[in-house]
């Protein structure tokens, strides 16, 4: 069984799977303007080929009893200020994980693996004759 954060209260038990933390981090990262997408592994690529979206693609998490550390692998759009966007990713991911899980996020490493260029629009040629 995948590792999970576990909390006991007088009402019962709470378990949060590591993958859930990874999905929260992935979604929070892709929400940031300037992020083209997450950089995936071979497994994630194969999953997408057969129609299954990998929501934790490009994310590695380490979850303890009270803390979490996250490694994100992202692709950014060309032309964005990478440092600024990376900082916003770190802030957004920290806020999302701490808000949704109560974990203290001690480290968020952003790895910029690539840059995405938009396809240049084809020029529409005016016809010479009418």
């Amino acid at each position, binding site marked *: 069984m995948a590792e999970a954060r576990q909390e006991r209260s007088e009402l019962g038990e709470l378990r949060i799977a590591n993958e859930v933390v990874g999905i929260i981090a992935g979604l929070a990262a892709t929400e940031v303007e300037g992020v083209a997408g997450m950089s995936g592994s071979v497994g994630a690529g194969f999953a997408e080929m057969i129609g299954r979206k990998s929501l934790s693609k490009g994310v590695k998490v380490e979850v303890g009893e009270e803390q979490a550390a996250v490694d994100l692998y992202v692709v950014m759009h060309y032309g964005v200020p990478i*440092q600024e966007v990376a900082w916003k990713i770190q802030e957004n991911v920290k806020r999302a994980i701490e808000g949704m899980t109560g974990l203290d996020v001690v480290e968020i490493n952003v*790895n910029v693996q*690539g840059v995405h*260029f938009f396809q240049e629009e084809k020029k529409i040629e005016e016809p010479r004759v009418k």
Partner: protein
Amino acid sequence: MTILDRVLVLLGALVFAVFGFLLFFIAGGWDPSLALGDLVSTWATVSTVAPAVLGFAVLLLGIYLFFFALRGLPQERFVEQETSLGAVRISFRALERLVYKAVREQSGVRDLDISLKAAPEGLTISIGLEIHPDLNIPSVVEEVQRSITDYVLKTTGINVARIYVEVRRIARTEQAGA
């Protein structure tokens, strides 16, 4: 992965696929000794060199694929910067694409290739250029160096220590149709 790697991996895949099909047919009741037995014994009696060469080639292919699998992926190089929340690492691959696109958009530049090196004092960029004809080369190069230094610093926060530019070719003008 080089082109040679791809070709050899493809050959290995074909060998395994053929072997897999043979096993599949054997499982379906096909007796290989009937079809292949005569072929193999004829081949072996006609020439011992061809089977030996083929066997040696397949053996070499197997050894190559074995070491290819053990070789592992090349380490990704990156430039790292620390923030209060963690590290920001920009891969060389991403940096090269950014610099390539930025230089390519410079006026006067027709084509280029680049390579990067990281040093404590900053990034060193080496650019090989092909430029349009009838331009002042020192001006074009100075503009490239200045704009790329500013661009990289503004976009990534990384200091560019030096930019080496080699103008390798002047693009030929296209001849007007007769």
